[in-house]
């Protein structure tokens, strides 16, 4: 327990330091920018002000629309969270069985089509996939709402989550990576001594190799894929007109709305680093043998 606490405090500290570092980097870039800008100015005082705004979650006002950033960012943040978490689960659901299957069959004739499918899915441009899906759905079914009912009360928002989650789940680049990682790791673990020994006892191979072969690689890759998912979310949100953080980031890029952009970057980094913290803690639970 004390070791767990130690790890937790250490990770928390490094997370805090990294967030400080990121904000410092952003502040530096902000000051390197040519031209004058409201809120710009070198010096520690300005930086401390920025830090205080960010860490108290009082983000101030947008320089373009003049609205309070909190009211813009948090609903968008929630929407993006739904999108990314849903698509992570979808990706796992698709790629893990393929990985297990190809580990068992060793990329033989049966698993070829699935592996090729995973490669195609991770190299197709996600926005093209989005348009393809919209085209197919609107042309042939007309059933699922393809755009988020933005600002209106019409339609069930749960149904409108389906398509974006589907597209991001299939189209983010991680499917083939997860398949490859799990196929390799599981194959390696399946031939280790302890798995063979447990097979000799009559235990199923998958059950005895699930910890080292599937869970640990899956956890470590999923949490390190969070930044890429947020990046993919920018595109998917643009395609589906999804009022999330990515679309907001793109709009503020077009509007040169820097305060909003910094807040978004801060929230994204917060997501990424807390994902990493979570990863370390979960891996600590799964990797007890480090003695």
């Amino acid at each position: 327990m004390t070791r767990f606490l130690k790890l937790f405090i250490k990770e928390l500290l490094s997370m805090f330091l990294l967030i400080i570092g990121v904000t410092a980097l952003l502040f530096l870039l902000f000051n390197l920018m040519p031209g004058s800008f409201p809120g710009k100015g070198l010096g520690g005082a300005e930086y401390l002000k920025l830090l205080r705004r960010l860490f108290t979650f009082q983000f101030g006002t947008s320089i373009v629309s003049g609205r309070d950033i909190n009211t813009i960012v948090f609903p968008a943040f929630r929407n993006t969270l739904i999108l990314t978490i849903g698509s992570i689960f979808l990706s796992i659901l698709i790629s893990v069985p393929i990985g297990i299957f190809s580990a068992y069959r060793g990329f033989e004739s049966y698993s070829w089509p699935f592996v090729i499918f995973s490669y195609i899915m991770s190299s197709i441009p996600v926005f093209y996939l989005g348009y393809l899906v919209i085209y197919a759905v609107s042309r042939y079914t007309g059933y699922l709402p393809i755009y988020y009912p933005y600002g209106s009360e019409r339609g069930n928002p749960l149904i409108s989550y389906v398509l974006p989650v589907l597209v991001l789940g299939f189209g983010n680049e991680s499917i083939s990576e997860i398949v490859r990682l799990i196929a390799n790791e599981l194959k390696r673990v399946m031939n280790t001594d302890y798995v063979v020994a447990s097979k000799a006892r009559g235990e199923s191979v998958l059950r005895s190799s699930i910890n080292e072969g599937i869970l640990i690689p899956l956890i470590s890759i999923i949490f390190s894929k969070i930044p890429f998912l947020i990046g993919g979310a920018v595109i998917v949100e643009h395609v589906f007109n999804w009022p999330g953080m990515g679309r907001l980031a793109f709009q503020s890029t077009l509007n040169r709305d820097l305060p909003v952009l910094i807040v978004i970057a801060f929230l994204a980094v917060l997501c990424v680093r807390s994902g990493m913290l979570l990863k370390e803690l979960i891996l600590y639970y799964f990797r007890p043998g480090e003695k």
Partner: protein
Amino acid sequence: MKRFYYEKERINIEGFHVPLSKRASVRDVVSVGFGLFVVFYLFVFFVISVTNTFIKDPMQVEISKMFLSPSFEHIFGTDFLGRDIFLRIVKGTEAFFIPGIISVTISTTFGLLFGIISAYYPRYFSKIIFYFLNIIDSIPRLIFILIIIVLFNPSIYLIMTFVGISSIPKVSSYIKSKVELLKKQQFIEACKELGLSQVNIIFKHIVWLSSKSVLIIQATLGMGESILIETSLSYLGIGVQEPIPSWGNMVSMGKDFFFQGKIWLSTIPALVILVTIMGLYLLGDGLNSIYSEKVSR
């Protein structure tokens, strides 16, 4: 007398027939072959577009030839201004080829450098370097690029430089773990005892003989990633601008005609992107499996 047996043995062994399915991994050969084919056509397209040896100008607008579907004359059809899509795809390689190479060069060289330094000085240097690398790593790449675009309004070259910078952490952590693994191995110890200089050991035995595969794989993956980034940015309208063709803006221009049933306008560039990136990924993957098999044998 002894020799007689060995002769006999040799004959017997050659008599052993081996089924073809077990002779070599067909999968690796197919992957690497496909990847090399992709690299080959990328290179040819790039050379053609740089030397400007087109049959017809890809920028030339011919309104009379709007929306022609694929035929012998225009193998990939024509777009909404009557421009030949195939020629535009050839021309479009220019948009990411050099920038992609820049980004790959940056990520591999600096990744290698930081990886080796942090593996050899694990106390302070490693911690400081990885602190900074983690900072870069924790900002989602696309959001980082958006910030850069707001701040500096850069060209595609500068954007790709930043893409390269943002993939340094991945490469250097790979290299670091690899070098740390190798450092403990006995052949490196043996090299030290044979009196080889540290620089010689690092560059010849660790980098060239052992980390080559990691670098090649990272380079192919990095090239694929930079193509994806370029297409995403062009799709968002902040990358390469019309009328200069790039694969990304061809897809995003074509999507407007998707609902009119003219799907080849964006499907064909999208398929080209798909095949190219898949080829690069498969190349990296095939090389990976070939190299790793050699190690395990």
